[in-house]
């Protein structure tokens, strides 16, 4: 009883410590300040004539005004509606962002202090998304699809080999030396060969991403399975478990925390391979878009694509964390992303 009570009270305790649960009315006041700053930013963008030749100034101004208005409403409405009050915790960030945009806008569009094309104005940034969203969206879809194909194949293969290595001495005898030799080699080293061997650049890239994912996952799954306490097996054996049960219901669940570490590492290295493969061979995707934009010296497009790529990677990592939190809910003290 006490153990349970303690456990629940500690989770509640850490929950309250997290940054999110700031319910002080002060943050609502800050939200109003942020709203006013964003309204000011909008007026500033619209009211001051541009020194640079830029389009989309009106749209940028309207966006800033709309955001400012929304924050103001949320700041006032937060006194009456709890969900709106939750937005208060973003207020410090919103204030800093408004000041940052004002400084950026001043240094570029308004006073033309920074050299073009390396330092595009916020307007140019907006223009990338309004004028080139079709190509950018298409690149994003291609990247995600290629990444998922490679990652899923690599994860399946890596997991299977890892379990086999951890379980069977004979598999270990044959696979271990091969893995020791080839595993540490960066997947990108295979790039020239892969583009030559595979019929399409897409299949070559899928293979490389799978390779980059599989190696860390194999090693981590292997060490996870090999490290399972023998007492866990003894318990299951005295209760009549067969080999199948020992692998599927004892070894794999016990190794799962390790498997997730491997998946995170695999996903990280698959991002690297994806970008390199798209820059060097595949004729679509965000890596290709970056390369293409550089060819045109379209720096605003490059920054725009980088932002999209960052959001993609961050979203995929977040999804993996969600999956882990679901599957490993039994673990104590799990890290929140």
């Amino acid at each position, binding site marked *: 009883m006490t*153990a349970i009570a303690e456990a629940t009270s500690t989770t509640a305790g850490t929950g309250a410590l997290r940054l999110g649960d700031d319910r002080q009315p002060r943050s609502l006041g800050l939200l109003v300040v942020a709203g006013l700053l964003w309204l000011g930013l909008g007026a500033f963008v619209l009211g001051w004539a541009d020194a640079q030749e830029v389009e989309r100034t009106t749209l940028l101004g309207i966006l800033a005004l709309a955001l400012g208005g929304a924050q103001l409403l949320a700041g006032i409405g937060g006194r009456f509606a709890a969900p709106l009050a939750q937005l208060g915790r973003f207020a410090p960030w919103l204030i800093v962002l408004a000041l940052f945009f004002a400084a950026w806008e001043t240094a570029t569009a308004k006073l033309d202090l920074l050299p073009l094309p390396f330092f595009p104005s916020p307007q140019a940034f907006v223009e990338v998304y309004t004028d080139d969203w079709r190509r950018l969206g298409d690149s994003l879809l291609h990247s995600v699809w290629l990444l998922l194909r490679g990652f899923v194949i690599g994860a399946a293969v890596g997991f299977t080999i890892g379990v086999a290595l951890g379980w069977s001495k004979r598999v270990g005898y044959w696979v271990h030396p091969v893995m020791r030799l080839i595993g540490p080699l960066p997947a990108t080293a295979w790039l020239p060969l892969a583009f030559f061997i595979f019929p399409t650049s897409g299949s070559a890239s899928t293979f490389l991403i799978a390779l980059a994912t599989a190696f860390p996952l194999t090693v981590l799954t292997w060490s996870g399975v090999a490290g399972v306490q023998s007492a866990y097996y003894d318990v*299951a*054996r005295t*209760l*009549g478990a067969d080999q199948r*049960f020992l692998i599927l219901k004892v070894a794999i*669940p016990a190794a799962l925390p390790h498997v997730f570490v491997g998946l995170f590492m695999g996903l990280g290295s698959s991002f690297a391979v994806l970008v390199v493969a798209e820059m060097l061979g595949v004729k679509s995707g965000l890596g290709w878009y970056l390369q293409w934009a550089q060819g045109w010296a379209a720096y605003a497009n490059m920054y725009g694509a980088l932002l999209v790529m960052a959001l993609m990677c961050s979203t995929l990592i977040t999804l993996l964390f969600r999956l882990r939190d679901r599957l*490993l809910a039994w673990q104590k003290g799990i890290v929140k992303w």
Partner: protein
Amino acid sequence: MVALALRDAAVHPGLGADLDVRDVDHGFVLHGEYLPVLSEVSFSARAGEFVALLGPSGCGKSTLLRLVAGLDRPRQGRLLVDGAEVTGPDPSRVVVFQDPTLYPWRTVWRNASLGLETRGLLKQQRHRVDQALALVGLESFAKAFPHQLSGGMAQRASLARALVNDPRLLILDEPLGKLDSLTRLQMQGELTRLWQARGFTVLMVTHDVEEALLLANRVIVFSDRPARIRADLAVDLPYPRHRDHPELLRLRREALGLLGLARDW
């Protein structure tokens, strides 16, 4: 070795299994050298008997339990349960280890149901898991995860996991060894109650002399490694027993003497 006839009142025929250990020798190879652990161990336990194995720490009692459970095979000698040779683990001979070894990824209920799941009986016999948890007083913790339990509760959960299988021979490897003394006293009472109600045979390793004498019909005293049987003491007292019963105190002195500790007490 003293083989004494026991009063039938203390022994439960029927469900329990007969155990026969004959001339068992066992050992391990450590750094290229053979290390004998058990030497010429022979004893038997009748159906429904509670036999405690008492001996110095690390003398090989736990190794003997692993042999009876079928987790390891003896180098020499035979182990018979109801006349049939032990060739591997079987759910009718369940072990409760010193550590509860619950699976941390399963709830208490799903840990307790393990033995039914391995045999594909879970769907028809779900109620037996609930019964076993109720028997050890954990019914309200069915959905808790092991890390939320105290040591005593975890050990009770592992007892429930064993009892679900209706064992005919319950093998206990210092099951109360890591519990605090109060929980320990309480669990000793619960073990006796369960054994009397269910009638299985119990083989329990302990190095607590008092615990052995409080719980068991017979106490088999082992020597230091390689373990040989020094004595087979009959504890012919009714349950529940009292720690300060003169007969118990006499047996305690005798057992401690056999373990070479008489002077210190």
